[in-house]
Structure formats: C-alpha cells, structure tokens
C-alpha cells in the first residue's frame, strides 16, 4: 500500500466492498462451526436475516479452564438445552458436537471424569458429531484423549470434527489424520477444520472433508477462500465462521457467499460450500432433518391474544432498531 496518504485513501476505497447481501437474498446457509454461547441475541437475529437456517455449535474451551466436572456437565447441557431454545427463537435450527477440547485434555484428572460423562451426551437428539477435538500444543495428553474420543465416535457411529492447531499447523493436521486412519475411521466421517492453502491439498487427497474458517486476522480471509474454491472446486469443502468470544464474524458464511457471487462463482457451487456439504457430512449422524429448518421457522408474530402477541414456542418479537424510543 502507498505511503502517500491521499493515494492510500483511494486504494482503501477501491479494496473496500461494503456489506450488501442483496445478491444472495433468498439463499439458505448452514454454518457448521459457530460458538453461539459466546454471542449475543442480536447475532442470532442478523444471522437469521442473512439466511442462516441451521448451525452447529462444537463444544470448546470457554476462554479459561474449567475447574470441575459439573461445569462441563452444565456446559454440555446448555448446548442441547438453553442454546437450542435461544436459536429456535429466531427460527434457526441448532445442532452441536460434543467432546473434550484439546486444551483441557491437558488437565488429566479432569479429563478422565469428562470421558465418563461424554456417553451421557453424545447419543442425544441433535448431537451430530464428536467435536471439536484434536491437537492444540500436541502434547501426549492431547493425543491420549484424542484417541479415546475417536474410539467413542466409532462406537456411536458419529462424525468427528477435528480442530487443527494454530502453531505447527501443517504437521498437526497430518498427525490428526494419521491417527484417525490408524483407529480405522473412514475419512468420509471426519471433518478437518481450520484449513488453509498449506493443508487443503493433502486433506482432500486423503479423502477427508476440508472445512475453512473465515475468521479475521488469525485464520482465513474470504478473498483467499474464493481462490481456494476456484482452484479446488467444491467437493468435500465447506465454510464456517467459528465465531466465538474473539474478534470474529457470525455472518462470515453469508458474506463469503456474497463475495463468491461477486467474483463469478456460480450459485450451485456456492450452495455446496455454504450449505449442502456440511449437511451431507454431519448428516451422517442421522440427526439432521432439513424439514426441521422450516419447522423451526414457523414463526407467527402476528397472532394476538388479549392484546398480547403470542410468540409460538417462545419466538422473540422484533424491535425497531432504527428508533431512539425503547418501549
């Protein structure tokens, strides 16, 4: 970028494309990795407005380590209870994957207790996989609980959602795949997450699903994503936001779809990587019914009873954000 402030301003203006999701209006999206626990209600509303009809919330690290088994239980239970309800209020179908994340696998005493708890949750309705599991620092403890959870996935016949590490990513990704194969998992049942230009080729060649996280600064940008799809096509490729408590974007999937459209990728290909592939991959759990996406949407905001709006199943009323008046 130029050092001349005037020139630089012009360059920024040219590279800046304002958010206008008009070109993807009417499309449906599925975000297969988003941590809604860490997001606000406003996010649900804008996600629904942007066309997101379903999502998967993988169990993860909450930003600080848990100190006891009961907080794990309550966290898992909130993923299949409260969070599911919160999403339904906005007409979004909420699924989750359940697992012990790699960071907390390093607290072995607690990890043992979590392993005993997991069978209580993985058979629940709407649990579409074991996840997100894998490597963070690539310690022996991480490997031990990764292996144990692969066995659990096999036993329950559930897909696996693998978190790949930030540091030493390429080797960590290879190792995750090697171990999955060693345990006899079908690569078609394994979704390798947080890919980039360096990892994608091998993941696809070995028959795994390749997920890409559009996350500012630390993971993929969506312009790079457009190039990936141009180069590799759409088979076994999916896009997610992994939005969480960091600077992230719960609209990453629809925004990426919109950018793809602007850059000339055809609608069917966009649909594959922002909706269908994720459903095909995680649908192997037998837990995803596309018909439920419309069922959860049956919002009737207009029904009034005794002067009060009846929001079926607890649907949330809309507020007019353009008004300064709050009533």
């Amino acid at each position, binding site marked *: 970028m130029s050092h001349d402030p005037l020139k630089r301003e012009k360059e920024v203006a040219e590279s800046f494309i304002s958010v206008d999701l008009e070109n993807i209006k009417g499309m449906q999206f599925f975000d297969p990795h988003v941590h809604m626990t860490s997001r606000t209600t406003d996010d649900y509303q804008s996600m629904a407005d942007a066309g997101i009809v379903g999502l998967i919330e993988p169990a993860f690290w909450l930003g600080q380590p848990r100190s006891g088994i009961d907080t794990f239980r309550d966290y898992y239970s909130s993923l299949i209870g409260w969070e599911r309800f919160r999403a339904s209020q906005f007409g979004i179908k909420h699924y989750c994957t359940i697992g012990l994340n790699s960071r907390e696998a390093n607290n072995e005493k607690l990890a043992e207790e979590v392993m005993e708890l997991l*069978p209580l949750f993985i058979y629940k309705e709407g649990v579409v996989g074991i996840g997100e599991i894998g490597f963070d620092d690539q310690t022996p403890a991480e490997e031990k609980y990764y292996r144990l959870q692969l066995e659990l996935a096999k036993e329950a016949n559930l897909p696996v959602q693998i978190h790949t590490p930030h540091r030493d990513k390429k080797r960590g990704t290879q190792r995750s795949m090697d171990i999955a194969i060693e345990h006899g998992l079908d690569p078609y049942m394994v979704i390798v997450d947080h890919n980039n230009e360096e990892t994608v080729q091998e993941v696809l060649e070995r028959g795994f699903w390749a997920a890409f996280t559009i996350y500012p600064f630390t993971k993929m940008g969506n312009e790079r994503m457009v190039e990936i799809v141009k180069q590799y096509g759409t088979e076994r490729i999916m896009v997610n936001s992994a939005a969480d408590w960091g600077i992230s974007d719960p609209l990453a999937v629809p925004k990426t779809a919109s950018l793809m459209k602007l850059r000339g990728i055809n609608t069917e290909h966009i649909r594959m990587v922002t909706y269908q592939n994720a459903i095909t991959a995680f649908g192997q759990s037998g837990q995803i019914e596309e018909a439920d996406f419309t069922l959860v949407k049956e919002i009737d905001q207009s029904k009034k009873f005794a002067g009060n709006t009846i929001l079926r199943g607890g649907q949330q009323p809309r507020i007019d954000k353009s008004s300064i008046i709050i009533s």
Partner: protein
Amino acid sequence: MIGNLFEEIIKQNVSADGWNWLAEKVALVNKGVNAAQLNIAFATVPGKTGKKPIEISAMQEKKIDVLLPGFSIRGWTTDRLSRVWLLMNLNSADKDDYIRRIENLFKAAEMNELVALYSSLPLLAYPDAWKFRCTEGIRSNIGTVLEAIMYENPYPSGYLDEPGWNQMVLKAFFTEKNVERITGLDQRANKRLASILCDYAHERWAAHRVVNPQLWRLVGKFIDENNFSDILKLFNSGNPSEKKAAALALSESDFMPAKDLLNQTTNLKNAISEKTLSWNSLVKEMKNFSSN
C-alpha cells in the same frame, strides 16, 4: 390404567419397528437395568418412534381425563408420549435409586427431553419427591418447558405449596401463556395471589402495557376495599372485554360495593347467570377477535 391406554395410543401412532424397540426398552427398564442403558434408551427415543404429532380419538381423550383429571396429551408428539411411557415403566422398587436416576435424566436433559420429563411429573412414583424439581422448571426460560409444566398438567396444583403455585401463575401471566390451560387455576385462587396479581397489573398500567383480562378471574373472590378501585377502573375502561372481565370478577365477590356495581349492568349480570358469559366464553371471544 392410564399406562395401558398410552400403550394403545403409542401402538397406533408409531411404526412396527419403533413399537418393537420401545416395548423392548420398556420391558428392560421395568425389570431393572443399569443407569447407562436407561440414559441411552431415553435419549434415543425420537430416532426410533419419530416426532410426529400423535393422533388420538375423542374417546381416548375422555378416558385420559377420567383416569387423571386435568391431564391431556392433545398436541403431544410421539417421542414425548413414548418417553413419558418409558419413565412410567421404570422400576421404582428402590426409592432412592429411582429418584436418583430420574434426577440424573433431568441434569443432562436436552430441550425436548426436558419437556417429556416435566410432562411426566404427575405420572411418576413418589410424587412428593418432585416438588423442588417442579419449582426449578418454573424458573426455566425455555418456553416449551414452561408450557409442559403449566398446560394440562395436574402436578403443580396437586403438589406445590402456595408460594410455589403463586410463582407459577404469576410467571404464566408474565410470559404471556394461555393461562386458561393451567390445571386447577380457579380452584387454587388465593388471597395472596390476588394481591400479587393486582400489583402486577399496576406495574403494567404504569408502563402503558396491556393486562390480560383473565388476571381478574383470580381476584374476584378476594375483592375488598384495597383492590376494589382496580375493578372499578377496569369496569369503566371503555374496553368491552375488560368490562366483561370486571363483571365476571364482581359476580364472584361477596363484597357489598362489588354487588352494587354489578347490579348497574343488568345485561352482563344476566348473561353471567344464564351462563352465556363466562371466563371461558370471554377467552374464546378474545381469541376470535384477535385472529380476525
């Protein structure tokens, strides 16, 4: 036996495979199995029985109401009824063990599982053991869970103490539920609740929000010099539904000024004594009005 009736209804509503699976699990939990087997059976019900709304004959509905007055399964889905039936068949010989198993199901329950669990309260063994659990459920903010406790469920009116009951009724108004579906609503009206609800109405009025006219059905019997002005306000509000609600409340009162006020509106008074105006007819009227 209501269990036999449920069995018959489930058979009618699920596939042969689903039925065979469920019957086998029911036999198992009845004989006594380890906790993990119960947990997995309970969790995996929807995959086996489906989640369609059940179909049920008018005769079956009537039978249910005779066997367990105030209870209904209208609008339930097959998985919900199947889960409840599974729980009804859980071996209850060892009280502590039985309670612990069911409590553990609550602790790790998914949203639809919670609905089934709370629906089952009036059908479980050791009914006194679930009072705290019921009040916990009332603290929930999940709409469908609240409805499972509030609608056509005789457990709360049968077992909750007065503060617990009052909390539930207030929450039902607060969350804009169809309060007429609460089993035992009129029977458990009490002076303390009437006063709580009048305070609530004042708050709503102060905020320029509407008050569900049905609130006054719980005040009628307790009209006194403190709350008479509220009824008077309602009576003179100019809103026909509110005037009818005021008249209905007045008709339930022995307070002299209340009787005098009701005498001023002969047509409403007559409609009430001829039973053409009742709380139920008022609810229907308001619903018809709103859907037009």
